[in-house]
């Protein structure tokens, strides 16, 4: 019994012949199946011929170059930005950065659309001005309310010209809608609008004004409204368009809202409005 029995025993020798035999066996197993090999050969040849002849070959997608990708991204960004700006401008009010863009879009719309839609657009523009006036009044921006009243007056003139040119009775719906819009305005804004309208009516009593559905007549109190206080100074353009409707009693003769309008913080409703109206005329 030797202590070195385990250590002095020589290690098992790996026979090279055995390794060679085993590797040869492995290699024999690694041959592809003859059927597979024949089938794959046919497929490869068919694919090559089809590709060469262009038969059944799917058109290779050309990858977009860096320049094309940059142009694509820039176009997409520009489109998104333009759309966003245009959408945002439609909510702009006088004095906002995007308000000129909004007005420009309205002008473009008039230029692009056919003539028979111009009266619709004029009514829409007038409604938009009145709505802006209401927002300004809610905001308490009295200085801009007066300026906006001048804009309302201008759009009202444009609208009247188109309405007068249209067959009688064809634009009654506009008048109804506009009268409804005026009715919904806050009192100071309404007085400014009415003042602007009355100013035109005072200058040319035959002109029609927006009336309520029941055909209330206009009030001849132009000189008492904040914007209309100076309206007497504004000259009528006297375009000679005949009135299509006789003045009728107003639906609900409301008290003159002058005191409210004159409560404007900066008093701009009196002076600024007058100047702008004259400037507009």
């Amino acid at each position, binding site marked *: 019994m030797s202590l070195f029995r385990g250590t002095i025993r020589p*290690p*098992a020798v*790996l026979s*090279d012949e055995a390794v060679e035999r085993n590797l040869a066996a492995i290699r024999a*197993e*690694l041959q592809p199946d003859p059927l597979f090999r024949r089938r794959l*050969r046919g*497929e*490869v040849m068919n694919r*090559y011929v089809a590709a060469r002849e262009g038969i059944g070959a799917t058109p290779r997608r050309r990858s977009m170059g860096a320049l094309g990708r940059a142009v694509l991204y820039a176009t997409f960004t520009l489109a998104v930005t333009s759309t966003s700006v245009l959408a945002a401008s439609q909510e702009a009010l006088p004095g906002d950065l995007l308000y000129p863009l909004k007005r420009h879009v309205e002008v473009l719309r008039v230029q692009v659309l056919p003539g028979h839609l111009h009266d619709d657009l004029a009514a829409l523009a007038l409604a938009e001005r009145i709505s802006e006036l209401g927002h300004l009044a809610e905001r308490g921006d009295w200085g801009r309310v007066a300026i906006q009243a001048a804009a309302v007056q201008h759009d009202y003139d444009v609208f009247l010209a188109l309405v007068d040119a249209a067959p009688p009775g064809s634009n009654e719906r506009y008048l109804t809608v506009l009268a409804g819009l005026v009715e919904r305005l806050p009192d100071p804004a309404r007085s400014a609008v009415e003042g602007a309208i009355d100013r035109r009516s005072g200058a040319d009593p035959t002109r029609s004004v927006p009336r309520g559905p029941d055909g209330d007549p206009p009030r001849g109190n132009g000189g008492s409204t904040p914007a209309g206080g100076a309206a007497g100074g504004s000259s009528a353009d006297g375009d000679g368009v005949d009135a299509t409707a006789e003045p009728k009693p107003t639906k609900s003769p409301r008290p003159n809202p002058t005191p409210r309008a004159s409560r404007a913080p900066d008093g701009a409703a009196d002076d600024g409005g007058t100047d702008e109206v004259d400037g507009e005329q």
Partner: protein
Amino acid sequence: MRDRPLSATLRPTLVEGPLRARVRTATGLGEDASVDELAMAATAGDVEAVGRLYDALVEPVYRYVALRLRRREDAEDVTQLVFERIVAALPRYRHNGRPFAAWAFRIARNAVIDHQRRLRPTEPLGAIAEPSDGVLLEALSLRDEEIRELRAAIRCLTPDQQEALALRYGAGLSAEEAARVMGRQAGTIRGLTFRAIEALRRSLRREQGA
């Protein structure tokens, strides 16, 4: 006999594949056209050259793939994929002095890696070490215990050693060609192969001594 290096035993045993064989059919290229010449002819539109190229490459590619994947079905699928990719990429092949075999085996290597990557998340850990479904390539090759031990020993090598062994002794590539395929230096491939063979020898000796 024991003084003879194992690599010297392996080399003539495994490497007598079609890469070294000359084509039999007669074309305009001649019967002894090399793989590179066949590839250039195939690129120029020679259909027969494509067939001869396939004949020259199918066995090395299949052996390489089978050594890396072990399952016969997987080996056939990936081999088919490799040739589809080779045919698709053939019009873009330019012979710049680099062997076509290296180019083709790079495609094969990428296909094998893609396949292994796809299988890895779904295959249980024990499935690779001890297959039991009866359809594994290993099961088909179990002729005796020694073959089983050799294949088990190959599985214990590092991935790089297995790759080098499969390229050099399965596909029959030279060290330079295998280096191009693996993106290494030829000396690195020789070192990997040497260490792989040494590890195999140690492993088999241990098995027989136990």
